[in-house]
């Protein structure tokens, strides 16, 4: 597709969404250990991927990802309050306190989860696309994974099936360079991850994940290919997470200099600079957006604080669709 000329509205949308993800997660990080427990994988640094996806995808397309899913959930429109309440384990969370950080879902908003087994969401994403094709829609499934997931057999089985059956799916690797603490180079001789598509004749492309415009263009093209030709695409979006793999990771496997290098090309700061440079808004307007986002984050925390935990009786709900399934309690 022709390169899109991005508008003032695009940039202001991206800026606000990326800032919401960033500020939300900074707060979640602060609350970790006291109010938030369990696993908590922060997305900070990778925000341009979700922002570019949101502007590029179609209104009925569906999204599935792995456990680093806060950004995708917020992008797909789950309210910050429902996400924060879920991190707190409250009944008002988007999965009623049952999923937690790794399993955010909102079926109505076309977000089919946060999944916790590395790579296992890849066939699920192809299956979501299979159902769209089967039902005769022109909807696409955007299926996200980390760089660690590409070494799973599930990826290769799914790529083969998706190409053979011509499924309307876009596979998106968020390559943040580390599978937990293991660098991409230590996991395979093939470090250009998009080239894995070549084995299955799958169109593939490397994308600068620090530039939201590049992300948008690549995802728009891939969605178009899936929608009109029913051909999958593999995008390797090169991004970076500033924080550790999870809250318990001091990230000793990389240098301070490397992190600083990426902070200098921070995706939010790049968008801010473009907005100011092109005169789309002045600093005062951007400050207002920042104030608004911080207020949203404050409200989400207050909402989570004020919400009740699930009653103990919730332990035995949502296990089966069958309402009168017997003998769950020993």
């Amino acid at each position, binding site marked *: 597709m022709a390169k899109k000329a991005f508008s003032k509205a695009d940039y202001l949308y991206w800026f606000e969404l990326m800032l919401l993800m960033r500020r939300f997660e900074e707060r979640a990080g602060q609350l970790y250990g006291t109010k938030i427990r369990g696993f908590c994988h922060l997305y900070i640094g990778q925000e341009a991927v979700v922002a570019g996806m949101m502007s590029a995808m179609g209104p009925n397309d569906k999204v599935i990802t792995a456990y680093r899913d806060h950004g995708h959930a917020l992008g797909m429109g789950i309210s910050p309050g429902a996400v924060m309440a879920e991190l707190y384990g409250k009944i008002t969370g988007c999965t009623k306190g049952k999923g937690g950080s790794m399993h955010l879902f909102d079926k109505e908003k076309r977000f089919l989860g946060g999944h916790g087994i590395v790579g*296992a969401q890849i066939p699920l994403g192809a299956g979501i696309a299979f159902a769209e094709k089967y039902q005769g829609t022109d909807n696409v499934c955007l299926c996200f994974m980390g760089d660690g997931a590409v070494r799973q057999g599930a990826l290769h089985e799914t790529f083969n099936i998706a190409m053979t059956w011509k499924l309307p799916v876009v596979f998106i690797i968020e390559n943040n360079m580390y599978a937990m603490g293991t660098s991409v180079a230590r996991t395979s001789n093939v470090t250009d991850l998009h080239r894995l598509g070549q084995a299955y004749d799958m169109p593939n492309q490397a994308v600068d994940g620090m530039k939201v415009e590049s992300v948008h263009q690549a995802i728009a093209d891939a969605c178009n290919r899936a929608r009109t030709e029913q051909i999958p695409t593999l995008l390797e979006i090169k991004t970076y997470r500033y924080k550790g793999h999870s809250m318990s990771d001091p990230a000793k496997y990389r240098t301070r200099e490397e992190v600083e290098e990426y902070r200098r090309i921070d995706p939010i700061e790049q968008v801010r600079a473009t907005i100011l440079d092109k005169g789309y808004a002045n600093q005062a307007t951007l400050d207002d957006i920042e104030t608004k986002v911080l207020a949203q984050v404050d409200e989400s925390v207050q909402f989570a604080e004020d919400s009740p935990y699930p009653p103990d009786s919730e332990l035995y709900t949502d296990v089966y669709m069958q309402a009168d399934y017997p003998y769950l309690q020993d």
Partner: protein
Amino acid sequence: MSERVIAYRDAIKEAMDEEMARDERVYLMGEEVAEYNGAYKASKGLLDKYGPKRVIDTPIAELGFAGVAVGSAMNGLRPIVEFMTWNFALLAIDQVVNAAAKMLSMSGGQVGCPIVFRGPSGSAGQLAAQHSQTFENWYANVPGLKVISPSNPYDAKALLKAAIRDDDPVVFMESEQMYGDKGEVPEGEILLPIGKAHMARQGKDVTIVSFNKMMKVAHAAADELAKEHIDAEVIDLRTIRPLDYPTIVESVKKTNRLVVVDESWPYGSIASEIAFQVQKHGFDYLDAPVKRVNGADVPMPYAANLIEAYLPNPARVVQAAKAALYRL
């Protein structure tokens, strides 16, 4: 009108055929299910009738195609996944246990997974260690799944139809050695409830509980016991999860003795679970310890005599029943 007699494999096929005709969302995928008509011919003719959109041959990639099917069930379809045998399904067990079984719970009740995983299980001649296993107890351990293991063509058809209509993920265990077995299956709609056991033979002296292919062993043992004037009651579980233990307990209240016949390895088996449930709910009615007759606690060997020594057989069940009756 005399009852129609059909083979177990045709009962399976009829169930899928009727449910595919009834509901456009139902489709079948698996290795060799379409052009080859099924490795065991359990899908014969379905490709011709429903076309390649709904009867789909897969590559040999159990994890991949099981996951694609689960994803499609999350998004509005009702897949039937055929595993050529349950032995190969171990490659896909992550998608059955971590995805299908847990999706409803971890999505806070939003995303159900109406899917049937089916295929043959159990020993099937001299197929050695990797092709001779039963897994009912593995899947029955998992909340979120239902597990069905039918012993005859009628039950196979009626329960598979119920499984396909069920809104929860169902693991459906057939038997390689029973696909040719014939039984009475009337024309037209038949359904059986999931989670209800079947009183296959009334008796008063000892209860024998079994399921799937081992029901033949249970019946043969009951016949042998009858020759010695021991009147055995035989229960066919039909469904493994949820387990209909009230039917077992009611029988034990009458007979006061219980033998469970189960092809699987004994450790943590369905027989073990039944023994627990009966001591919990019927302890005061037991006049002898519960006996179990399982497969041997070893990998299945190849030699015919070793298989004979491995599997439950009528003589071992008779022995167990007599031990429970203190009549050895």
